[in-house]
């Protein structure tokens, strides 16, 4: 909390210093609704490599997600545009693997759960200085996990408005409720389930992110974006209810180092071909100090069938190497210092492909003037890890202006 307060204080002092140097020339305008977005999503996955049961067992999961964001804007006396964004997100999932944390009871701590994560952001764009600065605070809660986050950002446009440099910094302060698999709980240790009065442990996990990015208009049809986003995590980075089965048949819970440094580098190139085709390309290289390296490419090609209907086929390919602490079920030695059988951090390649359709009629969707557009998107995900994992994702977006 101290770090959050310091960050907010620093930003406010920067803001006040900026205010003092400007001369009022414009009238203050009222706060107005600029945009509202509603996103609904359904996600379903299947697989047989659950980390909860040591790398074997069902990974079946269904997730219903809802998001609502409201963008408010106003202009102050110095003609600076202030934006306030309220973002409310809710996921409700049922998970076959989490049901195996405590398979002998009907009150398993996390068979189904609701994840709620709202955030509030403020930003100020100053056209005279060609700068934008902002701050956002975020909160996230689920049964066994709480997170508080703060992000600061600053960007500066070039004189010709064709280049923008941005820097952002963020921190998340999280707390785990340490729920252990039923058979591995010490005497007197709680299950974490509602109504169980036996105590459980709480452990921190903190994440610090920095992002430096540059966007550049290259010509009338092509623009690019480059970013580097180092991140550092420390605390309990293993999941306390992931089981490990050693080669000698004994059992324990996952154990991973207490810190992790990640370095992703990303690049986007977007090109408008003719009057109808857009190529959206993305590439990311990732490495971390747990020994993982990954390459991700994404290509999406929106095709404007008419001025208000577009189709967007997309394809994403990703390839990652395993962290050095990974081994499948029953293959870790008891002498290993760290161990995990979580296939999410194993070596695999994955593909995600599908199609989106977007309608933006000139008079509004269904003749409702403020309903600017509607979008439906379906994708199929296949992952090669272990026995393989498949998922389907369906998203609906309604945008109001």
């Amino acid at each position, binding site marked *: 909390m101290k770090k959050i307060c310091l960050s907010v204080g620093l930003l406010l002092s920067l803001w006040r210093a900026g205010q003092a140097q400007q001369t009022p020339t414009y009238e203050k305008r009222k706060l107005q609704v600029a945009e509202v977005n509603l996103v609904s999503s359904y996600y379903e996955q299947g697989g047989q490599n659950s980390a909860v049961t040591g790398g074997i067992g069902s990974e079946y999961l269904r997730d219903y997600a809802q998001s609502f964001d409201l963008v408010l804007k106003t202009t102050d006396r110095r003609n600076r545009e202030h934006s306030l964004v309220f973002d409310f997100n809710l996921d409700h999932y049922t998970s076959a693997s989490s049901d195996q944390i405590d398979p002998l009871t009907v009150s398993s701590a996390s068979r189904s759960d609701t994840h709620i994560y709202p955030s509030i952001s403020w930003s100020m764009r100053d056209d005279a200085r060609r700068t934008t600065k902002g701050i956002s605070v975020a909160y996230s809660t689920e049964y066994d996990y709480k997170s508080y986050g703060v992000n600061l950002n600053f960007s500066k446009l070039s004189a010709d408005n064709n280049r923008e440099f941005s820097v952002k910094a963020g921190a998340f302060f999280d707390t785990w409720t340490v729920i252990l698999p039923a058979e591995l709980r010490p005497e007197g240790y709680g299950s974490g389930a509602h109504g169980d009065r036996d105590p459980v442990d709480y452990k921190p996990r903190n994440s610090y992110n920095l992002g430096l990015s540059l966007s550049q208009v290259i010509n009338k049809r092509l623009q690019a974006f480059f970013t580097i986003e180092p991140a550092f995590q420390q605390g309990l980075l293993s999941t306390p209810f992931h089981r490990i089965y050693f080669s000698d048949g004994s059992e324990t819970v996952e154990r991973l180092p207490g810190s992790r440094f990640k370095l992703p580098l990303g690049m986007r190139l977007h090109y408008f071909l003719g009057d109808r085709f857009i190529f959206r390309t993305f590439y*990311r290289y990732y490495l971390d100090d747990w020994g993982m390296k990954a390459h991700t490419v994404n290509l999406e090609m929106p095709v404007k069938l008419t001025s208000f209907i577009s189709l967007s086929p997309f394809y994403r390919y*990703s390839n990652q190497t395993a962290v050095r602490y990974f081994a499948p079920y029953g293959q870790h030695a008891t002498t290993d210092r760290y161990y995990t059988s979580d296939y999410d951090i194993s070596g695999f390649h994955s593909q995600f492909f599908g199609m989106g359709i977007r309608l933006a009629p000139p008079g509004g969707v269904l003749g409702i003037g403020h309903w600017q557009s509607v979008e439906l998107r379906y994708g199929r995900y296949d992952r090669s890890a272990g026995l393989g994992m498949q*998922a389907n994702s369906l998203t609906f977006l309604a945008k109001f202006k």
Partner: protein
Amino acid sequence: MMKRIACLTLLTMSLLGAGLSGCVSVKEYQKSRINDADMELSARKSEKFEQNFYLYREGAAGANGGKSGGGCGCN
């Protein structure tokens, strides 16, 4: 690790330098295509929850406009 980071940073900066030298100055009135909603240099709003499942189902994260911290993604 640090050597690799230094190499990657140098490579990125070289690519940036080479790429940006070929840029032309585009006026605001010439940006009708650049300003198209599909040309926005970030992930789409409709990709919001897809970004979440990549974050949970894959080890690599970040540099794509999604969140890179907060939430356990443990199910």
